[in-house]
């Protein structure tokens, strides 16, 4: 892939509508409106596009769950509540190329027969919020959004700010938040496709997922599937951060080598450091030790290596970091972000955090490590939503792969690292 397609990071980030049009913006509309809604859903199914937020659910399939006829209005919701630690790819689109997102949401609306979309953007992304608002107004003023788009379809978008809650990235919590309530996950079923926003059939997709659709419409199925490999087609945004010299968002085909991404594109590690671990898909995914990073980054290979592609937020950790501290930092995060709805998450994550504080302050005891593992067993799979499941890999993996660091903390030689 020579030209970045989705972020269109180069040559000009954040184009005006005029410039966006000049480089082929909104060219997907003729392709969209010449097909029936059903054909669009079939095209998205055929593309193999999977949700780019982290769960990797097949997008076309999700859209196909929307009933054709509904008494209540149907809705398209964009999940722009990006906040999985290590993930910052959606921000690049929201601030850098919001018109592409609008194009994608219109395609989604057309395909399911919805006339109203919402971009739920995390409250902290003020710059992205303003940019999206501006783009929505620009698009509406020029006939790319609102009434009678392409002479045949009505669709409008409201840009909605959240107010700080990681849990709102969970789609049903997001819907509750959009309805002005606490962001707490709903019981499923009913799934949002049947009963979502304002109890109407709703699709919720990640920012990046929407942006694949216009690119697919313009370039066609064959082109789209020339990137990646079976089960993992298409271009993808990879966010890489941590101990690398050139952190950033890279747009590459799925299946790019993880090792190459870290050591070539992202510039490798600071001089004199060695690699200790890589978190490949946001903080909720399992660690990969250095012997496991020589893999193509696609859904299957990363899973086979024992982790998950997740949000493709890659955190590179070198030998200057203490792994107990790393686990402590993430444990604080998950505890802080627990919505409090269910007990294993609310109480269990608090307990895990307390144990890490004990370990870090030199008061760790030998029984703490088995206790952490026991807590992981009791929390995992027993909660309402996946938040708590995401808190567990870092605990288990650091204990499994770096037992010596835990032993050293307990023996009193704790944390001489900087983190």
């Amino acid at each position: 892939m020579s030209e970045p397609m989705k972020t269109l990071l180069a040559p000009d980030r954040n184009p005006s509508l005029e410039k966006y049009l000049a480089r082929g913006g909104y060219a997907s509309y003729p392709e969209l409106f010449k097909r029936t809604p059903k054909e669009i859903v079939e095209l998205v199914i055929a593309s193999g596009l999977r949700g780019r937020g982290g769960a990797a659910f097949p997008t076309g399939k999700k859209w196909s769950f929307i009933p054709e006829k509904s008494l209540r209005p149907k809705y398209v919701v964009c999940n722009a509540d990006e906040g999985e630690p290590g993930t910052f790819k959606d921000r690049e689109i929201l601030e850098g190329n919001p018109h592409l997102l609008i194009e994608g949401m219109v395609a989604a609306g057309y395909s399911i027969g919805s006339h109203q979309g919402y971009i739920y953007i995390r409250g902290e992304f003020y710059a992205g919020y303003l940019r999206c608002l501006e783009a929505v107004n620009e698009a509406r003023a020029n006939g790319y959004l609102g009434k009678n788009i392409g002479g045949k379809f009505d669709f409008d978008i409201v840009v909605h700010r959240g107010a700080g809650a990681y849990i709102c990235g969970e789609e049903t919590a997001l819907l509750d938040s959009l309805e002005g309530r606490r962001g707490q996950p709903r019981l499923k079923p009913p799934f949002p496709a049947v009963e979502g926003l304002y109890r109407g059939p709703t699709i919720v997709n990640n920012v990046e997922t929407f942006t694949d659709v216009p690119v697919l419409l313009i370039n066609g199925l064959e082109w789209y599937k020339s990137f990646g490999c079976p089960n993992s087609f298409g271009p993808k945004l990879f966010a890489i951060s941590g101990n690398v010299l050139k952190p950033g968002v890279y747009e590459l085909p799925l299946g790019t080598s993880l090792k190459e991404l870290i050591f070539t594109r992202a510039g490798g590690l600071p001089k004199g450091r060695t690699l200790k671990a890589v978190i490949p898909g946001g903080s909720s995914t399992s660690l990969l030790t250095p012997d496991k990073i020589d893999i193509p980054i696609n859904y299957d290979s990363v899973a086979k290596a024992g982790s998950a592609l997740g949000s493709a937020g890659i955190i590179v950790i070198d030998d200057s970091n203490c792994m107990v501290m790393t686990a402590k930092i993430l444990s604080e995060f998950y505890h802080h972000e627990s919505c409090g709805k269910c007990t294993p998450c609310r109480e269990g994550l608090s307990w895990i955090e307390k144990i890490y504080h004990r370990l870090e302050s030199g008061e760790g005891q030998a029984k703490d490590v088995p206790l952490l593992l026991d807590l992981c067993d009791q929390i995992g799979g027993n909660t309402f939503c996946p938040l708590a499941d995401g808190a567990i890999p870092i605990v288990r993996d650091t204990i499994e792969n770096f037992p010596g660091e835990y032993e050293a903390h307990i023996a009193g030689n704790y944390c001489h690292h900087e983190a």
Partner: protein
Amino acid sequence: MKKKLPFSENVRKDILAAKAMYPLAQSALIPALLRVQEENSRLDSDSMLAVATLLGIPAIEVMKTGTFYTMFQHKPVGKYLLQVCVNLTCSMLGGRHLLDRLEKTLGIKRGETTPDGLFSIVPVQCLAACQEAPVVQVNEVFHPLLTEKKLDELIASLRSEAKK
């Protein structure tokens, strides 16, 4: 006698405009609270009650939502809210040292406000700006790739901005 609103007429208008954008009035609640906070720097019970009345929703709904999200401030905060990311990538690259540095230079602890009302310090979770770690968000603006030196300069420039 009609009670005076705890926010300006502009805020009242903006809240009503937000209400008109959604099929359900409560959907405008978070935007309304953000708007009130933008003007008053925090949410007190008078303003939350006024929002409930404007949106025509029960006060308890405003309390529930208003106390759930981390961006809503209930205690008075300084003119500049210094939000230091303490999540993984930022911590790996010195974010927690920035937090310590702020506490030392401003003479307050996290969660506190300087006596002159200029600065408050809060640790925050991932701001999704890890390529620019460590990051400190001041009110709505992200300040990327900070070092202790750059942080000192930032504080100095905020101080001189406040004097103007």
